[in-house]
């Protein structure tokens, strides 16, 4: 049987603050027999900065990534919701022929705009084969936190429910983890405002962490590098500001998958988080 292959676009965060998301994603895909072929010479998608500065630039930066994927004739995948959103948005806008021509003009290459873009979360969610699990993560209680861009807006991201997404809950529940119901699945974490306007982000991070705590979660499972960074690296500040102890490790769903597949916490870079997940995992006999 030939392996199913994808063009892989990790995006900037995954080669820096979210390296553990990249490493664990690659391990999970390898274990599932899915081939990730990283695009050569990929560039930044422009994130929120490009689209709010020059609309055409905000389309052309992800446009170049789409064009690289077209050349490889493989479906394109990325673990990052911001990258995913920018790629899908550019493809969506380019359904308008005049926009497609404009972006092609910037790139000096004729974009066909025919490449399939799917996030790694969706591919794993829809994977029907054996997950090759070596151990159960039963005993662990978690909430799944999706953030914004994997679920909104429907015209761009259309694989899970906008208000009450299930994909990550389903995947992590398959590992034996008890997934708790809660109200903050797709609330915003404050995104990049944690740098230029931290007080806005602190308030949002606090509400999310408190929401997780209130339903009895022992950790928060995430799929977004920015969500992870905000909930993890801002947690100490938020605890001090709101005089409330949280102690909630913020773990990528692919790290938990890797753990259940038999990889060690070190291989999955579970020691990279600021709120250390290892004491919790050890107390459950998982590390």
């Amino acid at each position: 049987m030939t392996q199913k292959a994808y063009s892989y676009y990790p995006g900037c965060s995954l080669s820096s603050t979210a390296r553990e998301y990249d490493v664990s994603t690659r391990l999970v895909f390898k274990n599932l027999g899915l081939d990730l072929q990283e695009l050569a010479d990929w560039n930044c998608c422009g994130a929120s900065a490009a689209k709010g500065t020059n609309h055409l630039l905000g389309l052309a930066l992800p446009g170049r990534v789409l064009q690289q994927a077209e050349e490889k004739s493989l479906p394109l995948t990325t673990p990052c919701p911001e990258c995913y959103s920018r790629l899908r948005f550019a493809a969506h806008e380019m359904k308008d022929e005049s926009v497609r021509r404009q972006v092609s003009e910037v790139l000096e290459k004729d974009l066909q705009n025919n490449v399939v873009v799917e996030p790694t979360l969706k591919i794993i969610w829809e994977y029907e084969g054996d997950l090759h699990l070596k151990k159960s993560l039963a005993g662990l209680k978690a909430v799944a936190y999706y953030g914004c861009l994997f679920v909104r807006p429907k015209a761009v991201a259309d694989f899970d429910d906008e208000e009450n997404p299930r994909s990550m809950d389903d995947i992590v529940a398959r590992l034996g983890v008890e997934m708790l119901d809660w109200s903050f699945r797709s609330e915003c974490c404050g995104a990049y405002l944690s740098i230029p306007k931290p007080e806005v982000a602190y308030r949002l991070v606090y509400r999310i962490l408190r929401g997780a705590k209130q339903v009895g979660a022992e950790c928060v499972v995430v799929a977004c590098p920015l969500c992870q960074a905000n909930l993890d690296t801002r947690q100490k500040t938020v605890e001090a500001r709101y005089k409330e102890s949280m102690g909630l490790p913020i773990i990528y769903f692919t790290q938990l998958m890797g753990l259940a597949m038999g990889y060690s916490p070190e291989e999955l870079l579970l020691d990279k988080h600021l709120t250390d997940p290892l004491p919790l995992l050890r107390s459950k006999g998982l590390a």
Partner: protein
Amino acid sequence: MGGTSTVTPVARSSFLLHVEKESGQRIMDCYQCGKCTAGCPAAASVDITPRQVMRAIQLGLVDEVLDSSMIWLCLSCQTCTARCPCLIDIARVMESLRLIASREGRAKEKDVALFHRLFLRSVEASGRLWELGLGGFYNLSSGHPLANVGLLPSLLMKGKLEVLPHQNKVTQAAVKRIFERASRLESK
């Protein structure tokens, strides 16, 4: 009752038309239900809320809109867009307002505008975002030299930050050209 009553159309200000053209959204469809504001993560931190921004555009209140903090603190989380019963892409309207304000050199939230500029400068320089560089340049240019430095030792120790920007000549050259061509074509 009957079909005889007439509605006098409100005169559409040039500002309203400008925003409609820039965003591609039908601003006059907004009937002020407030769902956008109810779900907005920034609403508690802004001067005028998304609902008020929509009304102010309808009324042609240029300064109230372009000098608001709302258009800069919008997180593009898309909740308003997802929930608007009139199918207005409100996040897109906020984005268009940021574009219009930027062109006029207006920015109520200067640090946010600066952050976006430095983000793009980082991408333009190497083709990819250099997170440590962005943080450093932001601290130096914003007048908050100590912002986030408390996090630096643990982030560096855990190998979470690239010490140097990405080095790839192909990406770098291609992205530089995209920036040049996009700004030339956009200004046409």
